[in-house]
């Protein structure tokens, strides 16, 4: 039974689409749950009413956003079995466990205590209310941990072996703690949750800038902006360091992804970083490249040695062909290069944005230039998150489970590699088209309704309202 290339294509598009929709809502949940817990803590520790209004206002926006995060996340969990049944049965022994533990340990905690936080005002004791806000925030970040352990395993499948079972070949767990402490998963966790914090900080800053530009609720939004600026500066500086650690892990474990991220065709010692490049992918060379004038910087970042050797795409292609037979083993270079570089440029911009805001803070309501930039920066962290995911997931292609690799290109376990083309469910074209179109329409419609409500409540400012559905 051969699955048609069309079913494969639509299944991939559908997964990418639902993942992108999901990731509109998730990073804000991760960061804003922490920010509103901080505000609530300030309220209960200082007794000041303004922090109570702040916690209520931002938690309301959080709740509108959360419903769609859950709804789109639900699709994902079932989409593995629905569209990627061969993948699911091949990896289920390992991949399923973190997903199940995510539900049991993290997601229950997040959603149950979020209910207490949102509806418990004056109904539960203060200490319980505060604890609930923090448990909900911890729950959402723990949830990210388990999901990224699952995703990290697809990138770097450690702690597993391959065996024949009653219904065919599959990967089985060899060592649980190796899977949990997978270095790739762990840097991914820090990278993603920090991104969520930056995004939430920009969100709070941007909404605050909107009101400050109109000189309304000045004290309220100045205080909100201050929390966002401090939180955001810490997170964005941290992200530069974590991002560097992450790239270092990629260099070790996914050499083809790194070669595409840096448009590196020839194997090089002392490779420079390119600030811009355009590749002719057929001819396997760059048409344009503008290097940063620091020799060996890429080698240093990737291997922590200025003369370190990095394998180029050409050599990797030959190496993979020898190991796995004919096929294209290099992901789309221009796409990955620009997705990765734009993400890095945006990440750097956020550091400046937060630092600029803190410098202007004393007279923030009159710093029109800064407030305008802050207001229009709202889409940028979302774009940065998407670009990051695109780099990670498209950069993994043609693999859905990357063959276990370490030490900058030593393939340790070729048999565990599974190509995306092998992993798709044996469905018909009509089925995948129906679900693709209806998911696209539904998510677009709901996202519009969601943005409308977010904009409505964000621009309304803090108002007393009953905590009711």
């Amino acid at each position: 039974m051969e699955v048609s290339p069309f079913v494969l294509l639509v299944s991939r598009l559908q997964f990418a689409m639902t993942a992108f929709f999901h990731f509109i809502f998730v990073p804000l949940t991760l960061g804003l749950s922490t920010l509103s817990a901080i505000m609530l803590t300030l309220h209960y520790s200082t007794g000041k009413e303004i922090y109570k209004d702040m916690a209520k206002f931002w938690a309301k926006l959080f709740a509108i956003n959360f419903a769609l995060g859950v709804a789109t996340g639900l699709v994902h969990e079932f989409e593995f079995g629905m569209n990627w049944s061969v993948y699911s049965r091949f990896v289920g022994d390992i991949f399923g466990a973190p997903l199940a533990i995510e539900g049991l340990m993290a997601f229950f905690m997040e959603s149950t205590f979020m209910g207490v936080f949102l509806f418990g005002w004056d109904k539960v004791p203060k200490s319980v209310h505060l604890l609930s806000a923090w448990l909900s925030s911890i729950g959402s970040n723990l949830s990210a941990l388990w999901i990224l352990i699952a995703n990290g395993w697809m990138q770097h499948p450690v702690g597993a072996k391959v065996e024949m079972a009653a219904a065919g070949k599959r990967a089985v767990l060899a060592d649980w703690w190796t899977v949990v402490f997978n270095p790739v998963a762990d840097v991914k966790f820090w990278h993603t949750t920090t991104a969520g914090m930056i995004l939430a900080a920009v969100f709070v800053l941007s909404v605050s800038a909107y009101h400050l530009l109109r000189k309304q609720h000045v004290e309220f939004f100045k205080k909100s902006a201050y929390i966002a600026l401090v939180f955001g500066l810490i997170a964005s500086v941290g992200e530069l360091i974590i991002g560097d650690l992450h790239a270092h892990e990629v260099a070790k474990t996914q050499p083809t992804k790194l070669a595409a991220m840096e448009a590196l065709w020839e194997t090089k010692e002392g490779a420079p970083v390119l600030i811009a490049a355009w590749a002719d992918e057929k001819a396997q060379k760059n048409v344009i490249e503008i290097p940063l004038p620091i020799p060996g910087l890429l080698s240093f970042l990737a291997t922590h040695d200025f003369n370190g050797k990095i394998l180029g795409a050409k050599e990797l292609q030959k190496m993979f062909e020898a190991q796995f037979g004919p096929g294209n083993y290099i992901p789309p270079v221009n796409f990955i290069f620009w997705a990765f570089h734009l993400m890095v440029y945006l990440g750097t911009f956020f550091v400046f944005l937060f630092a600029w805001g803190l410098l202007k803070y004393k007279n923030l309501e009159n710093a029109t230039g800064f407030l305008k930039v802050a207001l229009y920066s709202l889409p940028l962290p979302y774009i940065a998150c998407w670009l990051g995911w695109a780099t990670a997931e498209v950069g993994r292609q043609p693999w859905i489970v990357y063959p276990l690799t370490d030490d900058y290109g030593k393939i340790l376990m070729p048999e565990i590699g599974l190509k995306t083309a092998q992993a798709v469910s044996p469905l018909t074209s009509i089925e995948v088209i129906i679900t693709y179109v209806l998911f696209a329409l539904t998510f677009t419609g709901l996202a519009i309704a969601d943005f409308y409500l977010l904009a409505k409540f964000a621009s309304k400012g803090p108002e007393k309202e009953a905590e009711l559905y």
Partner: protein
Amino acid sequence: MHFDLQTIWAILVTILIAGYIITDGFDLGVGILHLIVAKTDIERRVNINAIGPVWDGNEVWFITAGGAAFAAFPELYAALFSSLYIALFIVLLALIYRAVSFEFRSKEESESWKKFWDQSIFWSSLIVALLIGVAIGNVLAGLPIKNMAIEGNELLGFVYAERFPISFINLINPFQFHGLFGLLVGITTVLFVIMHGVSWLLWKTEGSIAERARNVGLKVWLPFVIMYVVCTGLAYTISFKVNDPELAKKYLQLPPDMFQQIASMLDENGVLHHALFRFPAIELTLIVLAALSAVGWLLAVRAANGARAFLFSTLTFIFAGFAVMFGAYPLAVPSSIGLEHSITIYNGSSSQLTLTVMLVAAIIFTPIVIAYQAWVYKMFLFKISPESIKRELEEASEH
């Protein structure tokens, strides 16, 4: 019955599914009752707020049951979800609309906006309950799945032999046994969640909504009991055929004595009669207990005692759910093509190591989850009514 890891996991997954139907079941029921028991805008807000702080925690049971099935029985997860592709897709769409309906409905003043989301709450709740029942019924009656390893394929696993659109139509085709049985179990499930929703509304609300809910409850009891009896009767007639005992022995991977026990029950044509009633004593006990609980529920609703009604509707489902699980054991998805192609809890499960790791996680976290969910429920179990909601809205607008 063997007390090995696979059996423990079969019980745990059943508990998670039961946990889902018990917790999300009542809010599905409240959703179906939304247009019937709540007429005015304030009443509808009461209805939604009756499940307000708890419904999304309830839905997590679904996510966790899905995750646990993926982790403990990956072959089952992969085969079932790709086989029931369109049906599951509709359930997901309905769950999405339901989630956002609650969130969006009261955030705009416009009449048509509210009406749209009210309708959405009703239909999405109805569809989820119906299709979950349809899926359970179809699986029990056997699906046309094939173990591709028998045909020498190393990767595909269990694959649905029918193609779309036949594969979907047959799930609700009343002229096919599994479709008919699926439909009937679906309707029974809808009636059950309505009963469970009635329990909750009696417990959580007072005034006009509780009164109307009680009347609905008194009306749905008899149809539910009749449907339950019909489904049980039909379930008794379900049989499966073994085409090749050697293949069954090799590919079902049952413990030898369990395989012997099943093999000894086959007739000369290889047919396993009354396949879901291989342990009639246990089966009958569970079914009778479920029926007694349903009677207890009726008495509680008559007495307008919400807490007691909730206990009895919960018990009804627990007994009925375990009757289903024990009936099918050790089969997870019986194949209607030939029993040797079935997914069992043995050939469909994860490795011993994964099952052990997951068991440790479940032993640690499940009691914690149940404890704090129970605690949250207790905290939010104050009664609400149209009057109390009105008061809360007025107080907020006075500030």
